[in-house]
């Protein structure tokens, strides 16, 4: 195992390059790196022989900030990690602190949380689909994707007033009651989405250029995916049927029926298919959830000042990009002693080097897109 998976990139100053080899720099201000990712590529002709990701341009010290805020004060900060899926971040953090305190959100809050989180998954996947297709050269999907994403953001806005960094949930439950037409809005959106996803698939799934650019590109075997700690759609496209919503259910996921889509080849095309199917499943969960939102309180009975008993907890959720984990240590005071965030993008990005070797420079863009990274989360 001391092979390419753990090796270091050669030092530029001291490496002796072959006649056809060059080292090029990509990013951090490159539109296809989805933020401020910088990649150093060692090329042999047009083929990538080695790569190194340089990250940290967006590091804000979120984990350090957590140690100087109360538990509630820190909650809005987590929205700013994966800023295209803020609701999922908030869910993970709130549930982790709830677990630490030994309280549980009321059933009504859990169901509303599930609905919003699944909508967020769809929104995140739509953004991924639009930008990923744009990177590869399909200009149309992004307009369609943003049209549908807008509907989701409108639902968020109606629910809590914010569109992106929503801070939709609170520790112990919800701040806001569901607005009157939430069910109707979600139902209309979910019903529409079905044929909209078909539309996207018509544009791409059998498109010769799309297939040519994605099939066999960035292959990650199941064994490698597990060794590299990949989670989420990246892991599932490699054929590992594992989803935290099923394996270790949280929120209200144990009440709903849905499938875990998996791929076979672990290439960019399979990851595309997995995410498309995930959107359909999320839509299915939403439709089931709105059928029966239990009545009752939306907030558990907790004090205004949170003082979880000393101890620690690890809680993770299936965020749109993979396993998002929170490891929270309490010393019994009002501020967390330590909050560790296990970001899915950071760990998934580590497999980039393995996926990119042997491919052409043009495929690098496709592979960055297919991992679905958000640099706010990679760098924290």
């Amino acid at each position, binding site marked *: *195992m*001391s092979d390419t*998976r*753990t*090796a*270091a*990139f050669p030092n530029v100053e001291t490496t002796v390059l072959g006649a056809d080899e060059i080292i090029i720099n990509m990013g951090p201000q490159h539109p296809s790196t989805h933020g401020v990712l910088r990649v150093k590529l060692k090329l042999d002709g047009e083929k990538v022989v080695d790569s190194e990701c340089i*990250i*940290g341009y967006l*590091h804000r*010290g979120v*984990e*350090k900030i957590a*140690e*100087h805020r109360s538990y509630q004060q820190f909650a809005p900060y987590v929205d700013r990690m994966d800023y295209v899926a803020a609701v999922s971040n908030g869910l993970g953090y709130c549930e982790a602190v709830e*677990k*630490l305190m*030994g309280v549980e959100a009321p059933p009504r809050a859990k169901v509303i949380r599930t609905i919003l989180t699944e909508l967020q998954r769809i929104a995140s996947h739509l953004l991924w689909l639009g930008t990923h297709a744009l990177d590869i050269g399909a200009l149309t999907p992004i307009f369609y994707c943003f049209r549908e994403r807008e509907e989701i953001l409108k639902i968020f806005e109606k629910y809590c007033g914010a569109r992106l960094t929503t801070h939709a949930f609170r520790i112990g439950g919800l701040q806001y009651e569901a607005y009157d037409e939430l069910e109707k809005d979600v139902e209309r959106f979910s019903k529409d989405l079905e044929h909209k996803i078909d539309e996207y698939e018509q544009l791409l799934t059998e498109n010769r250029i799309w297939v040519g650019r994605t099939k066999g590109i960035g292959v990650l075997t199941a064994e490698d995916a*597990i*060794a*590299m*700690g990949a989670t989420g759609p990246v892991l599932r496209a490699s054929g*590992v049927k*594992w989803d935290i919503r099923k*394996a*270790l259910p949280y929120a209200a996921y144990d009440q709903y029926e849905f499938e875990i889509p998996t791929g076979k080849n672990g290439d960019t095309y399979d990851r595309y298919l997995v995410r498309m199917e995930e959107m359909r499943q999320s839509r299915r969960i939403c439709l089931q959830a709105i059928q029966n939102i239990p009545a009752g309180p939306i907030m558990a009975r907790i004090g205004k000042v949170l003082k979880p*008993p*000393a*101890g*620690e*907890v*690890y809680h*993770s959720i299936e965020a749109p990009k993979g*396993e998002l*984990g929170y*490891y929270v*240590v*309490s*010393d*019994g*005071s009002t*501020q967390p*002693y*330590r909050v*560790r965030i*296990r970001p899915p993008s*950071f*760990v998934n990005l*580590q497999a980039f080097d393995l996926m990119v070797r042997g491919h052409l420079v043009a495929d690098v863009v496709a592979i960055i897109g297919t991992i679905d990274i958000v640099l706010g989360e990679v*760098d*924290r």
Partner: protein
Amino acid sequence: MAPPAGEPRTPAAPAGAAAPPRPPAPPKESPPKPEPLENELVKRLKARFGDAIREAWVDRKQAILVVSTKRLRDIARYLRDEEKFDFLTDVTAVDWPKREQRFDVVLNLYSFRKNERLRLKAHAAEAESVPSVTDVWPTANWLEREVFDMFGIRFEGHPNLKRILLPDEWQGHPLRKDYDILTQDEAWVRENLGIQSGQ
């Protein structure tokens, strides 16, 4: 035993300010005593590694093992191969500056087959290095680099131990409890970032 209980929090004020030491936290509404963990897994581990398994307890229904730092890699390999904890979810650390061995290096493991999590902890003193588990789980590569970056813990046997999130020239390790924004090197900020530090 579980360290959190006796550890008074370092105040956020700059170190050295004569903040009155908080009185030792009085036993409030009986802090939950961690229950010792005694299951088949711990028995097997103890039979095989003896004293290297220091403590085992359950906190919020989650299994925690404290193991000897020196034998961390052997235990990791055994857990991966024999006990099927094939997935390393996370590597991180916690700083307890008042303790003799101030760092907890924390490994979160998961087993697909058992659908179970396990948390491994190894204590490390300030200058002590911890065996790297990159050859057991390659995913530890970046995670250990982050721990090195944020805490300054060195991992022995790591193929590429350098900073990952902060610039290479950065001074200090931010997630240590004694690191403070006021102690940052203003000259460095001026020179490298081209801005006047605002403090």
